[in-house]
């Protein structure tokens, strides 16, 4: 959780620094002929992505990585696999940002229905998480919740009910050993 805290603090710090220095004030403009349609920041003259965007993007993906790992069984191979996948996912994001430079310079290549960097977003960043999702679905019983966990859970429920803890209001004081946490 300390990692998650550090990543959130970095993101918040970037936002606060931008607010303090007056950066990022440009806004989209109304389309000259078809308002309320908008045209891009700087009236279509695309500025190069800054270091802040790289840091923000990587920190943001880092928060997602940490939250994705929390639910898996400790020590299971899928945690390492998701970690390795996330490295590839971050690289994909970096490639997307790099490819934007070529696009901003005038490259008009269309790939599978979208401009090249937008294609990386649509078919890359959006669809790449299917890899861990399919892995989780496949390894569900071993990595996430299997018969061993179900048996342990049934035992907890049975113990609680034996002690008369059928509380409807979710209070812990009517059953179990109430408030006996560490």
């Amino acid at each position, binding site marked *: *959780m300390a990692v998650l805290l550090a990543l959130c603090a970095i993101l918040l710090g970037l936002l606060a620094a931008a607010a303090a220095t007056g950066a990022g004030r440009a806004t989209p403009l109304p389309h000259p002929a078809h308002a309320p349609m908008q045209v891009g920041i700087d009236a279509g003259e695309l500025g190069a992505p800054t270091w802040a965007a790289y840091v923000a993007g990587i920190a943001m993906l880092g928060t997602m990585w940490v*939250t994705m790992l929390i639910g898996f069984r400790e020590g299971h191979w899928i945690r390492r696999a998701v970690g390795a996948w996330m490295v590839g996912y971050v690289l994909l994001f970096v490639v997307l940002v790099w490819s934007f430079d070529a696009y901003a310079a005038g490259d008009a290549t269309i790939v599978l229905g979208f401009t090249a960097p937008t294609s990386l977003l649509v078919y890359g960043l959006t669809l790449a998480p299917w890899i861990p999702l399919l892995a989780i679905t496949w390894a569900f019983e071993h990595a996430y919740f299997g018969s061993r966990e179900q048996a342990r859970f049934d035992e907890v429920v049975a113990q609680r009910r034996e002690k008369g803890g059928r509380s409807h209001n979710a209070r812990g004081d009517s059953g179990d050993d109430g408030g006996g*946490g560490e």
Partner: protein
Amino acid sequence: MEANRALITLLAVIAYLALCVGVGLWSLRRTKSASDFFVAGRTLGMFVTAFAIFSSTMSGFGFVGGPGLMYSMGTSSIWILGTIVISNIIVLNLVAKRIRLVAELRECVSLPDVAAARYGAESVRASVALVVLLGVLGYLATQILAMSIVLQGVLADAGVLENPSLALCVAISCSVLVFYSVTGGIVASVYTDVIQGVIMVVASVLVFITVLGTFDGGMAEISRIVAADDRAAGGPWGTIGIMGALAWFFVFGIGVAGQPHIITKFMMLRRMRELRYVIPVGVIAYSFAALLWIGIGFAMRALVIGGGHPALATPDAASPEFLQTFTHPLLAGVVFAALLAAIMSTADAFLNIGTAAIMHDLPNAIRGRSLGNELAWARVITVLLAISAALVALYSGDFVALLGVFGWGTFAAGLVPVIAIGLNWKRANVLAANVAVASSLLVNFGLRSGFGFGTVRLPYGVDHGAAALLVSLVLFLSISLLTKPDPIDRDIERVMGL
């Protein structure tokens, strides 16, 4: 057939509303207790749960607001859709298992119930109930307003009524919504969600095929036209720019784990092992529905730029205009029914969790027990809540829009730390939970309203919800790390270890 376009749309909408009433009557016999009313007696199978989650997530925003964003901002909103898969993995890992297990263990019927069980504190139940209630009122009012505007357009186009008033359309649409929500509770809600979800998926695929046929060269030609007009709109960030797009990716990617209308559905699942396929099935459905969002919005932008259609008065007109002008009348009828379905499926979910907050959670937090005869009270409060939201929708002016956008960010900022992180981290304590909830309300409402001085614009157009989520996460994590952890009930602690 073209001459009867408006009539066909009206008939499709009437058929859909009649189907909702029918499901309400069918569910009446299956709703015998408060547990049935709020969590369907924990009897839902994999497919029903997956579609209930998908339908509640999609809402009218996906069919009207989403294409509107594509129309006005180009590709920016693809960053929202880009979270479809990754956000669902986060939901699965952070919330789905824990919430399902705690709900069964403690027989919880609501999210504040789960929070109270986790923290062993009524103050956390009250905080979570307050966030849920405020968010619900805003969301519900905006959904009712959207539903009524759609109905108003359909009735006016068909010439059934001359200038039907908004109040009349609110009354008609709310009556159907309240009827099936009162008679069948969440059972009716989830089964209408399944119907609504199937309609949405089929309609989205058909509309996308129509979009591809509108231009020689399909999506490639649309992209060329958009990018040639404005490089930013066709690029990966759209007009909002890189930081704004990333902020959307963050708040929608992680924030979904705090949306009560989505995560409470996991409490209703029959067996844990069915969770395995819930997320993949839901993601596939959502991905199909995203085709309509991208297809219509981008196509209308290209059509207007290329002179194939006059400029739109508002971005939200993109979807209705495309359907009325470019699709087959039968398909337009199905999509308008799907649009109503998307709105109603979200509205009924909010109606249900709002009712639980009022009649179950707040009384429990204040006087230590819920109201007697919970099922009867649930039905009465469902009606009263719907009426209140309808009045807010009709008479609060801009406030309803403020509440609507306030909802997602507030849920994300308030509930991601308290519920999603809290159910996985034993060190999280009551103080941190209450501070996180308070900060989510204060930051989100403060930035959006400017405390009466107008909306505060964040650098790079970063979403207010993203800022509120960051603040609440930092406060929640740092307070929990710096202060002593509270004791956790042994049974909850054991479930957190599974």
